[in-house]
C-alpha cells in the first residue's frame, strides 16, 4: 500500500497544482498577518479562507485527480491488490498532499506569527475540513463515471455546505422564531462540517461571548472542553462516514 501511496503522491506533485495551492495559501496568510496589525484580525481573515477556499480546492482537486487517475486505478485493479487498498492509497495520497500544502501554506506562518491555542485550533480545523471535503469528493466521484457530472456533484456539495445550508438555517430560525431554538441551533450546527469548524474557531477567538446570544446551551456546549471534543469527533465522523460509504460503493463498482 505504501508503494501505491508513494506513486499517487508522486503523480500529484508532478502536475504542480498542489505546489501552486501551497504557494497561494502561503502568500495569503503572510499577507493577512502582515497587513493586519492585530494578529487576531489576521486569524479572522484567514478564517474566511479556511471556510471557503480550502473546501473548494480540496473537493475540486480530489474529484479531478480521481478521474484523471482512472486508468491507473483500472491498471491497479488488474493486479493482485485489494480494492480497499487501492481506494485507501488514493485517499491517503490526496489527503496527505493537500494537508501538507495546508500545513506549509497556513500552518507555518500561523505558528510562527500567532502560535497560540487560537492559531493551533485554526490549523486543526483547517486540516479536518480538508479531509472532510476529500471524503465528500471521493464519494461524489465514485457515484458516477462521467467526469463532468462528478465535478458538478462535487461543486454542488461545496456550494451546499458553504452557502445554501446557512441560508436554510437562517430561514428556519427566522420562520420558527416563536419557538425555543436553542437545541435546534446546536443540532443545525452539527449537520454542516463548515459550520462546526467555524464555531470551534470562533469559540477560541475572543468573540465567544457574542455566541452566547445563540443560547445558554449552545454557549455552554461549545465552551466546555467536552463540547469542543465532541465537535471535533463530529468533524472526524464527517471524514469517516463519507469515505466509508465511498469505499463500499468503490468495492462493488464496475470499473
Amino acid at each position, binding site marked *: 500500500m505504501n508503494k501505491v501511496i508513494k506513486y499517487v503522491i508522486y503523480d500529484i506533485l508532478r502536475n504542480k497544482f498542489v505546489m501552486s495551492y501551497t504557494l497561494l495559501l502561503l502568500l495569503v496568510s503572510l499577507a493577512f498577518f502582515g497587513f493586519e496589525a492585530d494578529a487576531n484580525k489576521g486569524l479572522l481573515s484567514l478564517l474566511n479562507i479556511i471556510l471557503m477556499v480550502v473546501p473548494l480546492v480540496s473537493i475540486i482537486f480530489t474529484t479531478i485527480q480521481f478521474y484523471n487517475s482512472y486508468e491507473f486505478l483500472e491498471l491497479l485493479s488488474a493486479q493482485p491488490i485489494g480494492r480497499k487498498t487501492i481506494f485507501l492509497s488514493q485517499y491517503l495520497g490526496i489527503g496527505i498532499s493537500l494537508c501538507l500544502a495546508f500545513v506549509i501554506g497556513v500552518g507555518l506562518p500561523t505558528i510562527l506569527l500567532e502560535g497560540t491555542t487560537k492559531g493551533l485550533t485554526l490549523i486543526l480545523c483547517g486540516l479536518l475540513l480538508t479531509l472532510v471535503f476529500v471524503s465528500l469528493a471521493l464519494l461524489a466521484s465514485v457515484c458516477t463515471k462521467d467526469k463532468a457530472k462528478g465535478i458538478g456533484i462535487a461543486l454542488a456539495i461545496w456550494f451546499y455546505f458553504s452557502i445554501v445550508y446557512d441560508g436554510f438555517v*437562517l430561514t428556519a*430560525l427566522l420562520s420558527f422564531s416563536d419557538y425555543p431554538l436553542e437545541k435546534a441551533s446546536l443540532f*443545525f450546527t452539527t449537520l454542516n462540517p463548515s459550520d462546526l469548524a467555524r464555531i470551534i474557531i470562533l469559540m477560541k477567538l475572543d*468573540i465567544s461571548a457574542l455566541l452566547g*446570544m445563540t443560547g445558554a446551551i*449552545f454557549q455552554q456546549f461549545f465552551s466546555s472542553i467536552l463540547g469542543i471534543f465532541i465537535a471535533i469527533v463530529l468533524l472526524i465522523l464527517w471524514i469517516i462516514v463519507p469515505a466509508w460509504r465511498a469505499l463500499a460503493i468503490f468495492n462493488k463498482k464496475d470499473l
Partner: protein
Amino acid sequence: MKKLTVIFILLSQLTFAKTWKVNNTSELLKSVAHSSKNDSVIVKKGIYHITNLIIDKPIYLIGGESQPQNYPIFDANYKGEIITVKSSGVYIGKIEFRHVGETSSIDWAGIKVLESSNVTIKNNYFRDCYFGVYLSACTKIQVLGNTVIGHPKEEQTTGNGIHAWKCDSIKIANNYVQGHRDGIYFEFVTNSLIRQNFTTQNIRYGLHFMFSHNDTYELNQFVNNGAGVAVMYTKHVTMRSNLFKNNWGGAAYGILLKDISDSQIQHNQFISNTVGIYLEGCSRTNIIQNEFSNDGIAMRIQASCDDNLIQNNNFIANTFDIATNGNSVYNTILKNYWEKYDGYDLNHDGIGDVAYRPVSLFSTLIERVPQTMMLLRSFTASLLDKIEKIIPSLTPENLKDESPLMKPIRLVPFNPKAVTVQKS
C-alpha cells in the same frame, strides 16, 4: 494670674491635642474611650482583635508604620463589624482591616460611617471584609488610596467594596477594589467625585450607580468585572476619561446606561467588551470623542432613547458597530470614524461623501432572533450584509452617519495614574 492660668489651661486643651501610643487591644480600647477631641491614637504594628468599636468624637486613628506590610491589623474574626464612626472630623489611616463577619440582616463593614461629615479614610487595607467602607447619610467624606480585596462567594453573600448611600459631596479617589459584589456602589449620592480608582474582578459591577445626580467620575479603570459598570436613573452625570476593558460574558457590557439624562460621556475607552455601551431610556446625553475597539457590539441603542448625540467617536475593529431594536431613530449620529466605512472622499475635506450605515442587516436579525448569532462570520451573513448595504430594506432607514470621517480622531491619550496595589 489665676485667670491667666485658667485661660492657658483651656488653650492647651484646645491646641495641644494629646497623642496616645497603643501596643495592644486593651490599650487601644482604653485610649479611644478616654481620648478627647482632636487626639491622635497611634497604633503600633501587631494584631488587634476588635469588634464593633464605636468612634464618637473627632480623633485621628493612625497606624504607626508607612509600609502596608507593617500596618497594624484589626481583625474581627468574622464576628462583626470593626469600626463604626458616628462623629464628624474623624481620620483613619494606615490600618489593615480583616475578616469582617457576614450576616444577611446587617451590612457589617470594615469602617462604617454614619451620619457624619468631614471624615477621611486614607491608605487603609481591607482584606476579606464583607463590606469594605460603608458610608450612610454622610457629607464631605474622603475615601482615598485604600486597597479593598475580598474573596467573592455568591452575589447574595458578598458585600460591596466601597458603599455609599444617601451622601453628598464625597470623594472616592485612588482606591483599588477587587473581588467584591460591586466595586463601588452609589445610591442617592449627589455632587460627588469618583476619580482614578481601579476596580476589577468584582462579581457584579465595577461601579454601580443609582439615583446619584450631578456626580463626576473620571480617570477610573473598570477591568474584567462580572457585568461591567451600571449607571441608572440619574441625571447630570459626567463620565470622563475612564477605561472600560475586558468585560466579557453573555450579559456583560462596558457600561449600562439606564434612564440617564442630560449627561456627558467623553474621552472614554471601551476595549474588548461584549457590549461597549448599552443605552436604555437615555435622553439628551452627549457621547463624544470616545473610542470603541474590539467590542462585540460597540453600542446597543434601544429604541427608547432619544435626543442623544453621538459624535466624533472612533469605532475600530468591533464585530458590530451599532445594534438597535427599533426602526425609528431619535438620536443624532454625526462625524464619527467607522473603520468599516468603505466610501470615498472626492473633495478631500476629510468627510466621506456617502453616508455610513452602522447597523448591519445581520445585527438587525440578531436583535429579532438571537439564535441567528450561530451564523456569525459565515459567508451567508456577510453576503446578506453586502446586499443590504446596496438596497436597504430591513435596517432602519434613517440610522446613518451622514458625515463619516475618513481618518480616526486623535483622542487625548489615556494615561491614568497607576493605582498601586498595596501588598500586605
